[in-house]
């Protein structure tokens, strides 16, 4: 194929597209890989490589382990994410089951209410929660508790979306069969529905953890003092002050934690796909699941 013919028909063989996509992937990932690389720099620079070292993780006075502001951010992020996960996932799972099975008045309004947080810009939710804690629920102090309540609020809807996808796929037949065989509605749920929902339940916990630890806007609006600074908030406040590579180290630790959470969600999804003979890979499942 001559160059002229290829230019005339760029869709023929996707060489051009392949190169464009490779450039895009490089552009999207290489800056982050460089940031990770320099978290292991032996020197103070974030642009000149001076050898490999764990100095900025472990033993420099400004390292993640030794600098209180960094270590506290790590602890706060993990604590907040764990707390949010333990509360938001059960509430969301119950809400998904309730909304999928409840027929009658109120269900439409409740489903609609559940969707609105998904489409609300984060800054609007941040302002709203800030103002309500400042003016009405003033018994809730800014800091961990306010952040926890805010994180659960934006996580619930995501859990509902994950779980109800699986609920629709299961249908009601299995439960009804169990009840025909003499199970009470509760037994049918405990012994039939919940085991079938297990992958979605595991995925919900993991995704809520990832959403919470990744959040910046709500955490910042609802922070109260140094003890409630999370990793993203710390990255934000430190990024422009010519920080040492320990800030990159903190970001890298955040990345590893998020990857572990998402990895376990993907693992749960793949397990169920295999069991059901589905051909979709975990990655594809995640891609299709996002709306």
């Amino acid at each position: 194929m001559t160059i002229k013919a290829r230019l005339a028909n760029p869709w023929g063989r996707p060489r051009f597209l392949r190169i464009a996509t490779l450039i895009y992937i490089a552009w999207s990932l290489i800056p982050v890989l460089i940031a990770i690389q320099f978290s292991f720099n032996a020197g103070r620079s974030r642009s000149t490589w001076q050898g490999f070292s764990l100095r900025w993780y472990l033993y420099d006075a400004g390292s993640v382990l030794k600098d209180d502001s960094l270590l506290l951010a790590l602890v706060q992020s993990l604590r907040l994410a764990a707390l949010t996960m333990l509360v938001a996932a059960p509430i969301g799972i119950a809400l998904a089951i309730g909304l999928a099975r409840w027929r009658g008045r109120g269900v439409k309004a409740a489903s609609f209410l559940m969707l609105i947080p998904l489409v609300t810009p984060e800054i609007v939710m941040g302002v709203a929660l800030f103002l309500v804690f400042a003016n009405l629920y003033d018994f809730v102090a800014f800091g961990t508790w306010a952040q926890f309540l805010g994180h659960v609020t934006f996580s619930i809807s995501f859990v509902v979306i994950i779980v109800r996808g699986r609920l629709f796929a299961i249908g009601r037949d299995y439960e009804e069969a169990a009840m025909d065989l003499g199970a009470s509605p509760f037994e049918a749920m405990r012994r039939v529905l919940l085991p079938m929902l297990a992958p979605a339940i595991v995925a919900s916990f993991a995704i809520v953890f990832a959403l919470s630890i990744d959040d910046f806007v709500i955490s910042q609006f609802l922070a109260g003092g140094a003890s409630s600074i999370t990793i993203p908030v710390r990255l934000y406040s430190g990024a422009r002050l010519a920080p040492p590579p320990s800030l990159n180290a903190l970001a890298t630790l955040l990345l590893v934690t998020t990857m572990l959470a998402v990895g376990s969600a993907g693992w749960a999804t793949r397990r169920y796909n295999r069991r059901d003979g589905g051909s979709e890979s975990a990655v594809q499942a995640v891609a299709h699941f996002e709306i």
Partner: protein
Amino acid sequence: MASNLQSAETEAVGQKTWIWQAFAMPGVVWLIVLFVVPFYAVISVAMGDIDPIFLKPQPEWNPLAWDPSAFGAVFGDLFGGQLGKIAVRTMGYVASASLLCVAIGYPVAYFVARRVEKHKALWLLALLAPFWINYLMRMLAWVNLLSPDGWVNKAIALFGFPEQNWLSGRAIVVILGLVYGYIPYFILPLYAALDRIDTQVIEAAKDLGASPRQAFLRVTAPMSKQGVLAGLVIIMLPMFGDYYTPNLLSGSPRTRMIGNQIDQFINQTTSQGGQGAALTLVLMAFVAILMVYYLINISRVTQKARE
């Protein structure tokens, strides 16, 4: 007999409804207390007063006593004042960044969805990876590269260009930062839409004599329109409220966006909470069309899944 059965069934359904409502109740109550009420608090603060002694906004919870003067101040500033310039700049940035996202994102999504033959999961993983890298970390990575002794300045020095101060008040840096930050969220729904198109439809177009280019322009492209729109809505909503990207990549009043103004009113002053609340409501009214479109889209997906 038949009526007996029916009444028994109705009873069972009625009993079940009670159970399912109880399941939904914690979530519904949570969202009312921590989503609906907070939203009402925004209106109450916007429609309230300022405490004359403590200079703190005083919310007005009673709709009959609402005072819209904060809106007056915001609208006055919006039409002819500093805020107007900020609003126009925000729209300019969001529009440019969105167009760039389409220009860069469409070929990428199209290639991975329809042209990859081997290792598709691997390509997809590369597209998904930025999703799970924290936004602030991705911005931090660029702050490193664009800092005075960063790699970008080193690279242009090779060609003899003088060192530039990229991180202060450059619109192009902020716009490219927005593109870098949000493009994964554009590509993914578009990928899903392109991936869903039935290959047979495109084969049919080719069988009927369409050239590959015609088949793309007249079949694939129109069928992916929904995906482009969905992706645009998903990235434009957070872009309109973004304040951290301009703050990190510029920090100058010259690149101030509406989100920065809200952040300043709410987080950095105490006496301007009323205006901050009013501006938040104005922003929300402005992006309401996007929100409704997104909402309809989600509902449609749900409806399909239910059937």
